[in-house]
């Protein structure tokens, strides 16, 4: 939804600003007062059909069910692990939600503190109690590579329009990259290429608000990694 309007003029609004007074419906981060739609967060005004909302520029990650996230194990219980996924609340990973059969009290043999795992958010209830699972295809413990943290509001820029940015990054740097919805990104490849990929991600984070980002990042990577390495990818 935001992609469609990405090319429109970017109007920055702050909480309390009037977004619309002609009867549009409030979307994300908006509320109605006296028939006027007002912003409830700082961000970019976004119109979609007849709703008007705000795409936040900052703010913490709020998990929604179905999100693929990367987390770090921070605590171990007899029948669960506590995972830090960058949300305001702890995310318990229950032994029933891992692909192994774990005996009661035997949790630390499988995952210990500091391990990085790729998870899916199973559910988030009204009181924001989070449940995460590792029982899905591709979900696993992550070994090797490096972890980059960016604000979750910048994740959509790293992925790009229908994945254009991320596929370009993968092709040009020849790295395996997994982006968690919570802003944690795992990069694996040989040292030099991974360095460039990490730098490129940091650059996206810094310049998320500027236009022509994909071209600029492409230029940046080309300057770091010689052209011929990427010929076989047919990237042009």
């Amino acid at each position: 939804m935001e992609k469609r309007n990405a090319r429109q003029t970017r109007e920055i609004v702050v909480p309390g600003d009037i977004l619309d007074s002609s009867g549009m419906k409030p979307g994300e981060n908006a509320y109605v007062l006296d028939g006027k739609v007002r912003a409830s967060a700082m961000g970019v005004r976004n119109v979609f059909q007849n709703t008007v909302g705000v795409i936040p520029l900052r703010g913490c990650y709020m998990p929604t069910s179905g999100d693929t996230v990367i987390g770090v194990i921070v605590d171990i219980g007899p029948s669960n692990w506590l995972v830090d996924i960058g949300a305001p609340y702890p995310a318990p990973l229950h032994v029933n939600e891992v692909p192994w059969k774990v005996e009661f009290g035997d949790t630390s043999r499988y995952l210990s503190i500091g391990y990085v795992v790729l998870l899916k958010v199973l559910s988030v209830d009204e009181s924001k109690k989070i449940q995460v699972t590792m029982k899905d295809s591709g979900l696993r413990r992550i070994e090797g590579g490096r972890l980059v943290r960016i604000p979750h509001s910048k994740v959509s820029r790293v992925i790009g329009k229908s994945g254009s940015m991320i596929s370009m990054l993968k092709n040009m740097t020849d790295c395996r990259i997994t982006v968690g919805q919570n802003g944690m990104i795992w990069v694996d490849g040989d040292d030099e290429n991974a360095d460039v990929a990490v730098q490129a991600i940091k650059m996206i984070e810094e310049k998320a608000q500027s236009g022509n980002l994909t071209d600029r990042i492409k230029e940046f990577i080309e300057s770091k990694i010689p052209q011929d390495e990427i010929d076989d990818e047919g990237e042009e």
Partner: protein
Amino acid sequence: MSGHTDMVLVDDEGMRIDGRTAEEHRPIKIEAGVLNNADGSAYVEIGKNKVLAAVYGPRECHPRHLQNPTKAIIQCKYNMQAFSVSDRKRPGPDRRSIEISKIISEALEKVVLTELYPRASIDVYIEILQANAGTRCAGLTAASVALADAGIPMRDIVPAIAAGKADGHVLLDLNKEEDNYGQADVPIAIVPSTDEIVLLQMDGNMTREEFDHAIELAVGACHKVYDIQKDALKRRYSRNTQEGSDE
């Protein structure tokens, strides 16, 4: 409020000791996003007041017994630096700073959409670096900019300013001399979209008419402060949009 002086606070032409008219506020400077490690931050100068505010969260609430299962709580800490006043202030919380912390967090609770983050806590730290009367208003002004900068959902930004009475005149935004030797001090904070009052205190004596006039002055000035707050937040991002990064 208590002291006596031979100083002429308001002269015959209605001019105050710092050259302002009765309805003029001190120069205000606001900057958002000044700290890297906090989720949101703001620096405010109102005349000789210098205030830094930082926001963390929403995050898990500790200690646990303070958690509210239906909404987030706002924990505010107002602290004056030892060097913020001319006689060294003894560091640590005292009766005054506890009171100010409480009223500021209550004012902010009215605008933050706390029900979005049950059981969480939003921590606001306000440091007074230099004080010259009106620090609670400067602190609240800074805190609400810092909250917006942290991306916390809120209905509106809260501007705050004081009005008062000195030498028998109703004045806007008292400075230290007017506060010390004046007759009354009325700090006010409003929600600009509805003109609701979220903070109102009065120290000293005023007649009903003077009080009404003071409120009117302060509410008008709050809208001016609000514009400066909005401008500070927008500037933070136009700075980022232009070519280079802000680092």
